[in-house]
């Protein structure tokens, strides 16, 4: 299982704080996002582009490091991925 936590605008679009994606194998970010969009279509419509990547206004992080779009890195099972608005200006 990979847990996806939503913050800021992605949280508003998803309508939930987090989502548990059931998987026995590590996933690519694209695969994870596809599963999130399947579970929460509103999130997919608002936050993903046509290629299934996060729009540039949002980003995903794993252990405080950004997961880049098209990243070949596998996200381990039992990890927590954070999706947030890219602009953290205050």
């Amino acid at each position, binding site marked *: 299982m990979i847990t996806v*936590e939503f*913050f*800021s*605008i992605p*949280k*508003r679009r998803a309508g939930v704080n987090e989502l548990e994606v059931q998987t026995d194998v590590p996933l690519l970010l694209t695969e994870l996002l596809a599963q999130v969009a399947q579970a929460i279509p509103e999130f997919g419509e*608002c936050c993903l582009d046509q290629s299934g990547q996060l*729009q540039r*206004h949002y*980003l995903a*992080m794993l252990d*405080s*490091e*950004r997961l*880049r779009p098209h990243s070949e890195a596998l996200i381990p099972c039992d990890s927590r991925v*954070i999706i*947030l*608005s*890219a*602009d*953290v*200006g*205050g």
Partner: protein
Amino acid sequence: MMSAPHGYHGRFLEIDVGKCSFAWREISSDTLRQYLGGVGLGTYLLNRLQDGCVDPLSPESILAFVFSPLVGSALTTSAKFAVVSKSPQTNRINDSLSSSRFAIAGKRTGADAIVLRGQSDQPIIVSIDDSSVQFLPAAAYWGMECSEAERRIRDDMPASDAQVAVIGPAGENLVKYATISNDGRHAGRGGHGAVMGSKNVKALVVRGQKCVTWAQPAQLNKLAKELSAKSFGPATAKYRELGTAANLLVFNRLAMLPTRNFQQGQLESASSLAPETLEKTLRKTRKSCAACTIGCEHLYEGKQGESPVRIEYESLFALGANCGINDPQVVLNACRRCDALGLDTISTGGTIAFAMECAAEGLLPSEESLTFGDGEGLLRLIEQIGRRQGIGHRLADGSKQMAQQLGPKAEEMTAEIKGLEMPGYEPRGLTAMAVGLAVAARGADHNRSGAYEADFAGDVAQGDFKSAVQAVIDSEDRAAVMDSLILCKFIRGVLDDFYDDTATLLQAVTGWDIDRAELRDVARRIVHERRQFNVRAGWTPLEDTLPTKMFQQPVGIHEAIDRKAFSEAVGEYNFRRQSES
């Protein structure tokens, strides 16, 4: 008189409030093209009108209100102005931005900048109506809080469309982080309010009929429409829907919400302060600066009868987490009282948090309400600071000065850079931002450097200080252009190519054949000019560092910073900036 470029008047107004005299002075087209306006032009004027060694609270200091080429156009978020002076808190350059109708009315006086110098022997209002300047008695308004003073002074002016910038009791009492307030907004950091207070000027009133011309009005209109349309899109959704306060839960989750004077990175029950929670329990209204289609201001009503208060991330961090407080009513009230007294929320919270840590370590008496989490104590201290009463008199000078009096142990507890209290970006978790904060000319500054963008974008890996240097330079350069044009930083996400897009806007306003390469040169010139002022004021590279605790204590999951790698990056930054000039 030379004809001014489109978008400008080509002159500034220099007012001596001690002699009750004024003079109009020309600004050449070349100078305007080289420094644009806002922060750039203000720094240019500061360097030429004031010696670097001057005491910022003396009659010889200047206080410049600087407009910009875009003000008055239909471009969204362009109704802004810069306030520039030497900071009484840092003794280095201080430039703050504020916005709204004051910017538009100020430019309509026919001035690209209004410079105050001298010292009146009694409280006055400086009123500029078109080209005429009046010096009016202000005794009746002295002591009034910001919004009341602004309202009363505007009501008492003969013209109903006059706009007013005021100081509150904090500015009158020379609190070193006092603000200047207009339209409910504040030129916040570094103590411009104290500089204005030292001149005995309670308010600057502006009104006028002088409009500038635009080089390509039809093109400018088209660009303005396009920019407005984009400003309704996803790039600014965070600001429209939640405001800057949306950062709170993100930073808390990443263990980067500075808590209890930067001793921790997470606040228990932080969600009680988050906008997602506040909007469920409190009445909320949204406002925007004049000429803005984003509207990032989210105001929350407190208990019945209390006026709505604007909540920003920085205020929630400084007066909430950093003081160990998670009661939203207390934090809302603290923000309201800072706004009323004319206090910078970041430095107020930072100074109080520092004193709370000192009290916990036995360096200050704890009976002075100096305990993390003591909400009533926080509110009492804010009043005492604004009026320089009791221990507030010492807190009013900021944490650095207080630490110098308390000794070396206290100096190791401060969370400030060059004397300016830290904003809510945790350097131990943000490598590029750590360098950006250390080298910033104004002191701990999240506005003239947005290097945290490189951290979040993944362009700079955690601990990779070497690659942070270029990110910091790029971020400072973009900010120099943005803050001189002036456009609100919250629109930056909608620009496809920063330099191309801003050059296109400037071409339509001025008719200059300016391109991205020239704008980059302008950016470097402005950064250099800001550094030059600091050099003249006594800056040394040793100042470009972080608070001691950043090198000594880890915070949550984030390691303490490697001092050697960090210092090498700062050295590299200073070398490269020096080579550019």
